[in-house]
């Protein structure tokens, strides 16, 4: 017991690995939010009128909305007038080669373990690296372009593919959807845009690394993924953020649209700075992610491993509109120290013979609070819909909390909805068993937790799975006492 406690204290004192700040000159606009700021953002980005209209409409709606208070979260008061809503790295325009990129920026990526050079060569991953708000470098674009695939920053998409943006932006997450989504619609600075044309199977994993960097800058990313008929894409999102004392707001919106027989797989490893051991600092992550299975037999799959953020409010959801469409949500959410997470999913069945699966694995340690909140709704006309939900909670230590809030609404007689939930504590007997075979307590916890989460981790693309396993291990080192 003593040994475990000593180990706990030793490693719990470890600093956040990716806590460093890059000194890059940033182009700010003054803090605070009003209609003028929204207009400046739109003007700076040289947007067409429909974008400005979209933003203003959202802003006006936002003014009438309140922050949601139904989550199992304690959120400190946020002063939206103290936030800077636009920051872009100075060096513009875009670079032709990596040599032109600010060396300090490159070294930041190196510290994160994602040097662009290697990324370019390794594993066929095209990287759209978002540093603050403006895309710095996009690779593999040419190869993708040959197939007609569009993978670019959101700003570029607005410039070069305004018709696609206008047609699909806000289709899944409308500006009035919720408080944070409305805010995002009003002020979002940049993000990623993906379009896969009819019948094309994207030959590589598309990936974006996000990183909040400029001080006091709210980060409002916007991602829009459209998979046209009979297409396939796997998209990866991963993030780390530098250490900060003040809390930073992150309110992203991700929209996915899958047309007839299209399949989209969206995988996230999320590692925002969670605050220190006492719960000071850390990112507030209030994200709206939603997919629309618009076409018949379309499929959307959310896979996520969440270890970061001081506060997480996030429910990657699917609307199964097309007949025979399929949706999956596979999640591992880990909280330690004073982190709070209220996360889960919504599966809205509208089409006939639609099928959804939810696998949620919560892991709580330290003084953290970890809630699963899930809604399964089967509309009256969604005949023969099926849902299977499995929500497991694993507790480490005696000071953490786990909660499950399943909501089930079934509107017809021939649909089947199943829900299973378990809560368990990591067993001292399991740890001792590992110890007795020569495996240290620290390694044993990592092993047991990874075993518990394996079902979900196996769904991740290979290189992400390895990263996720390490992340779980690092995030939990010594958290059993």
């Amino acid at each position, binding site marked *: 017991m003593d*040994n475990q406690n000593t180990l706990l204290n030793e490693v719990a004192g470890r600093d956040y690995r990716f806590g460093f700040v890059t000194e890059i000159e940033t182009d700010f606009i003054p803090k605070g939010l009003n209609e003028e700021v929204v207009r400046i953002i739109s003007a700076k980005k040289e947007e067409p009128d429909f974008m400005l209209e979209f933003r203003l409409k959202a802003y006006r709606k936002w003014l009438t909305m309140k922050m949601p208070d139904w989550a199992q979260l304690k959120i400190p008061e946020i002063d939206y007038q103290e936030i800077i809503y636009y920051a872009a790295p100075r060096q513009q325009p875009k670079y032709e080669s990596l040599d032109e990129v600010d060396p300090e920026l490159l070294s930041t990526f190196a510290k994160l373990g994602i040097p662009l050079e290697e990324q370019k060569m390794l594993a066929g991953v095209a990287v759209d690296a978002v540093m603050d708000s403006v895309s710095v470098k996009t690779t593999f674009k040419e190869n993708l372009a040959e197939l007609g695939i569009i993978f670019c920053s959101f700003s570029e998409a607005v410039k070069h593919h305004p018709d696609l943006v206008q047609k699909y932006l806000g289709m899944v997450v409308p500006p009035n959807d919720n408080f944070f989504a409305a805010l995002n619609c009003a002020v979002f600075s940049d993000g990623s845009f993906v379009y896969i044309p009819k019948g094309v199977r994207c030959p590589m994993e598309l990936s974006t690394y996000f990183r909040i960097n400029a001080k006091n800058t709210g980060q409002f990313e916007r991602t829009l993924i459209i998979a046209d008929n009979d297409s396939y894409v796997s998209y990866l999102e991963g993030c780390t953020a530098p250490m900060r004392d003040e809390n930073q707001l992150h309110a992203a919106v991700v929209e996915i649209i899958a047309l007839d027989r299209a399949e989209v797989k969206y995988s996230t490893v999320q590692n925002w700075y969670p605050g220190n051991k006492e719960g000071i600092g850390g990112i507030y992550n209030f994200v709206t992610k939603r997919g629309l299975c618009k076409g018949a037999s379309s499929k959307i799959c959310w896979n996520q491993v969440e270890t970061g953020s001081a506060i997480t409010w996030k429910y990657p959801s699917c609307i199964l509109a097309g007949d025979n469409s399929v949706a999956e949500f596979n999640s591992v959410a880990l909280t330690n120290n004073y982190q709070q997470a209220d996360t889960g999913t919504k599966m809205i069945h509208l089409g006939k013979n639609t099928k959804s699966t939810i696998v949620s694995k919560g892991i709580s340690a330290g003084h953290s609070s970890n809630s699963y909140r899930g809604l399964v709704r089967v509309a009256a006309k969604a005949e023969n819909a099926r849902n299977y939900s499995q929500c497991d909670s694993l507790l480490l230590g005696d000071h953490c909390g786990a909660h499950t809030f399943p909501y089930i609404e079934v509107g017809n007689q021939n649909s089947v909805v199943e829900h299973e939930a378990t809560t368990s504590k990591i067993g001292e007997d399991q740890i*001792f*068993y*590992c110890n*007795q*075979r*020569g*495996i240290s307590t620290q390694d044993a916890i990592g*092993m047991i937790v990874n075993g*518990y989460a394996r079902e979900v981790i196996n769904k991740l693309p290979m290189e992400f799975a390895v990263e996720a396993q390490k992340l779980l291990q690092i995030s939990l080192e010594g958290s059993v006492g």
Partner: protein
Amino acid sequence: MLIIKDLHARVEGKEILRGINLTINAGEVHAIMGPNGSGKSTLANVLAGNTNFEVTRGEVSFNGKDLLAMTADVRAKEGLFLSFQYPVEIPGVSMINFLKTAVNESRKYHHLKELSAGDFLKVMREKKEMVQIDSQLTNRSVNEGFSGGEKKKNEIFQMAMLEPKLAILDETDSGLDIDALRIVANGVNLLKRAENATIVVTHYQRLLDYIVPDFVHVLYKGQIVKSAGKELVFELEEKGYDWIKKELGE
């Protein structure tokens, strides 16, 4: 190899071991017998470093080193193995991954090169044959869904993989049918070396029909009250533990 002096231990404030003295040399097989609640499993767990048990007095030297000063994982790496009475399940952790980690942690500790995946699998195949364990089992999660007999076989398989200096078999015979018992015992006997020692903790004599002990100790109320050669096994079987109690004047 192992020298236990005046060992006292308690669990949840209750004293279970009350002055154990025992010396075990390389090449020897010792049986520890005794009625339920006499402290047999406690002794096995205390030696393995289970922190649920608190050592209140005494010392234990293992190959000249202070055993009680080591954490459980270090004791294992020093060559002490416990075959658990109730092996736990670890869902999602494959037997192969688990054992490979265990073997390589031990090799690192002894400054040996870690085994490659290929070499590891080769060793694993050999040892699997030795204990006649079903190939399927090693592809599953640690002990998950194993029958009682499979779990015990799996313990001996792990012992074969880790090649301990001192193996403590805690009630390895419980829950085994006669065929499984024979296989398990056979495995233990095949693993016997002149430089290794074994402690067999058991309530019954039947395992000792197959694993023949050099010494037999009777544990009663936290103390070793009688030690003798293997003939003691038969005497106990014939007369029962009451005979010991009577001898002690109870």
